[in-house]
């Protein structure tokens, strides 16, 4: 007999679907096109990228776009999955119907949020593998482990950001409003990269942190170590679980639905 309730099992079954296969394919296509086009850029453009983003090798120049693509795909895919938790049902006035069933509010939120974040987690890791394999196929001697560890760090960051968004979504009742908020949250961590490219004087005399040029900074100083990647994944799972618990607590005490 399963320890999971039929409702939780039903939500888990919906978590992964053909849409995820389509997103992995999109990520793989981006990685292939990127690997094919970047080396063909004129020398001047490549030097511009090297100087602006403080990268060294051709592999780095290819990977920085792969990482950006992975981050955008994972974050938006996850955000759209999370719209099914509260905003979508609230907008279409289905929330009362769901909660009229013998399912508690907290149970409902956790049962919908956790599979959505778990599927995002799997998507991020799958895209990491796709990026690593594509780079290996294109450059031959490219190392797989640094690509996988950087991909894991991106996934970990995206999952925590999504768990925070899931909490914020409880205050919204309009899908498009939530999409706009998710877009702003997605772009925010990328803004320092624009500052580094166009205003490097802002960073003069400072040690550049990981947040200074995400995701290019994941390629600096030898990349992300396997230990740090494992720590990031474990930390992200813990933090995301805590944020889901807070969201469940909040929905449980929300006076109006």
């Amino acid at each position, binding site marked *: 007999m399963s320890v999971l309730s039929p409702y939780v099992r039903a939500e888990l079954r919906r978590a992964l679907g053909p*849409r995820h296969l389509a997103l992995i394919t*999109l990520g793989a296509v*981006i990685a292939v096109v990127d690997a094919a*086009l970047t080396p*063909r*850029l*004129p020398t*001047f*453009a490549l*030097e*511009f990228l090297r*100087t*602006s983003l403080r990268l060294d090798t051709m592999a780095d120049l290819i990977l920085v776009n792969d990482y950006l693509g992975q981050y*955008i*795909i994972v974050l*938006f*895919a996850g955000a*759209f999955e999370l*719209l*099914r938790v509260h905003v*979508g049902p609230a*907008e*279409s*006035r289905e929330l009362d119907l769901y909660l009229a069933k013998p399912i508690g509010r907290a149970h409902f939120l956790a049962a919908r949020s956790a599979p959505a974040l778990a599927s995002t987690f799997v998507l991020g890791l799958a895209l990491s593998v796709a990026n690593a394999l594509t780079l290996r196929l294109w450059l031959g001697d490219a190392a797989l482990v640094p690509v996988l560890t950087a991909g894991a760090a991106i996934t970990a960051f995206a999952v925590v950001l999504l768990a925070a968004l899931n909490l914020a979504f409880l205050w*919204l009742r*309009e*899908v*498009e*409003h939530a*999409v*706009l*908020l998710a*877009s*702003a949250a997605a*772009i925010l961590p990328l803004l320092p990269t*624009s*500052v580094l*490219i*166009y*205003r*490097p*004087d802002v960073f003069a005399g400072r040690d550049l942190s990981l947040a200074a040029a995400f995701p290019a900074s994941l390629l600096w100083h030898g990349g992300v170590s396997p230990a740090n990647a494992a720590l990031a994944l474990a930390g992200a799972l813990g933090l995301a679980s805590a944020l889901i618990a807070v969201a469940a607590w909040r929905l449980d005490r929300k006076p109006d639905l």
Partner: protein
Amino acid sequence: MIAALLRQEVRALLRARRTRLAVGIVLYAVLGAPFLLAKPPPHVAEAAATWFSGDDPAFSLFLFIWTDLALNKLSAILGVVLAGGIIREEQARGLLPLLWAKPITRTEYYLVKLAAAAIVFTLLIGGAGLLGLALFPWQIAGFRAGPFLVVSGVHLVGALFAVTFSGALAVLIRRRLGAMLTSLMVLMLLVGGAFLGFYNPAWADYTVVNPFSHAVWLLGHLDDLSAATVVRPLLVLLAIHAATITLGALAVRRVEA
């Protein structure tokens, strides 16, 4: 009746919370652009002189930052937020049987919704341009209002593709969230590739399929902003819009209540 419906749709969109958040994001983009341009490093100034035409590389760089960092990303997101859920939003609320019973055809209703989204999009992106026109002469050395208005105006016409495309996908793809996510991913890819023809002139012919490339095409012709030069991207963009709007108008006939 159609004019009254359009007025009501525009008013409803202007009152929506998403539009208020969008205004905040637009303001941030307008106010942030001059900061990025205040002290461009030598390699960025050199890149602007190499990639774009014009006897003033600093002004070309400003227009690049303005169209790429500020307007392009905003357009992709706002297009989806304003038009990515049209018709499907009403479908989710169970309103379509009522709407289809009104003395207005599905195509007319779709076109009214699309026009309302386009008007609000124009108010937001065009408003950003007008606000920039008021602020930038004080903030940007060598700012020239004429070329700024022409480049921003043509860009706006091109950026409206985000609205027409999102609207078409909204009725072509049955699932609303799937349609919005697909629109967002495709628009992000197009925005990301908008300047490829500048980075590598050998690829300029391939960017002909990208409306956002036409939207920024004038950056390569700043020395010659004659009527003939300006009309070329406008004609291409209007043809693309006509095709996309027609596709949506045909697809909406098959949408079930």
